[in-house]
């Protein structure tokens, strides 16, 4: 029995919901793992803010071409069907509602779908990148995250206390413990780890969890 899902397992679970033919943007860092778990037989086309659609996996070390990178500045590759474009076209894809899914990380998600994922407060150098554009553009904005912070505090909260990335934008959260939809300003539990009771999950969640229909076991293979 596992206490909680690994990051790779959370990414695997999120990948199962990406439909055939979807155009997808993955946030930098942990969300990039989602691309590795595309179900066989389904093709998703990945978008990166810096102007590539349909890029492929990382090249072998030493084979990098530094004109061919993703938004995280990591080297990628081209595949049959790759397209290049400038930044205004790239964000027309984002804001114009042409992306099907954006999958992002989070510091906090509120029960109304507010997302905080760009700033931990006034200290240090602020940096936002494309996160604020992505949350208001993609048809579906999902978050993948550990259920709680490193020191055990809820990341799913009544209202974000950290600076917002976007207002009422997230519709589904995949955590290390559960899959939760945001509907009508509420967290609605869809899936949870079988070994975890509803009450135990609620204690780790900063706002009420609602049940609206079946709650199924969150089952993920070792990946």
């Amino acid at each position, binding site marked *: 029995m596992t206490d909680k899902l690994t990051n790779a397992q959370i990414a695997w679970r999120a990948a199962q919901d990406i439909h055939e033919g979807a155009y997808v943007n993955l946030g930098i860092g942990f969300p990039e793992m989602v691309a590795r778990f595309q179900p066989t037989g389904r093709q998703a086309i990945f978008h990166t803010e810096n102007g590539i659609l349909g890029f492929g996996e990382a090249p072998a070390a030493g084979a990098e071409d530094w004109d061919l990178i993703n938004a995280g500045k990591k080297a990628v590759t081209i595949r049959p069907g790759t397209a290049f474009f400038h930044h205004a076209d790239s964000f027309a894809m984002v804001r114009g509602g042409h992306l099907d899914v954006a999958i992002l990380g989070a510091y906090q998600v509120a029960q109304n779908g507010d997302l905080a994922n760009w700033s931990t407060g006034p200290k240090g150098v602020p940096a936002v990148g494309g996160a*604020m554009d992505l949350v208001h553009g993609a048809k579906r904005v999902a978050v993948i995250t550990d259920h709680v912070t490193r020191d055990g505090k809820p990341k799913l909260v009544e209202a974000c206390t950290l600076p*917002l990335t976007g207002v009422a934008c997230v519709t589904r959260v995949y955590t290390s413990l559960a899959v939760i939809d945001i509907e009508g300003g509420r967290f609605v539990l869809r899936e949870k780890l079988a070994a975890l009771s509803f009450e135990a999950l609620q204690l780790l969640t900063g706002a009420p969890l609602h049940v609206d229909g079946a709650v199924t076991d969150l089952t993920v293979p070792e990946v």
Partner: protein
Amino acid sequence: MDKRISTLAAATAQIANGATVMIGGFGGSGAPIELIHALIDRFVTTGSPGNLTVINNNAGNGHVGIAAMIEQGMVARMICSFPRSADPVVFTERYLAGQIDLELVPQGTLAERIRAGGAGIPAFYTPTGFGTDLARGKPVAEFDGRSYVQERWLKADVALIKAEAGDHLGNLTYRMAARNFAPLMAMAAMRTIVQVSHVVAPGDIDPEAVITPGIFVDGIIHVPDPAQEEDLNRAGARYPEVAA
């Protein structure tokens, strides 16, 4: 008409103290390293141009390119979306010491503000940033039941960009994701200077393949085999080179 410029020094000679300079590139891809370093050479020799406002997605990495400009003290203000990188020490130290101003702009808003500047559109509305700290003080309006933030155009005195091929008339093609902000910046600056890896004769670029038409370009300078910022940083390079 012939927009070729023969030296990097001549290509950067007209940039004045206090100028607003758009610099192409996303991280190292598309960064016009040789043009930037030519500008640093001029500053080191003559003390000019300083007090610059630089517009770029980032704020430099390591000790070359834009980071080296900042390190020399040429930059008073950065307008960018993501002033972090693998080695952001130069910007970070100056920012935290209050020695450089930062205007942080969401990346898509940055791109669209530059596009608007080049297209003669003084302001536009975007959903990006609504309800966040980065929209504070900006006009908000509702369209079809949704709230949007007003953002203004960005223009510059000069754009320094990198392209793959350019003909004598300034028609340009780019290389892969090095394109990023360059076509937008070329439109938004009073004067656009381009370093190109290949100079070709008019007619050698298929008109169907031109990405930036020459009307947006004022000068091209041939820089064969341009340096990649990522390679320079992996080699621990600094500019200007420090004598051993």
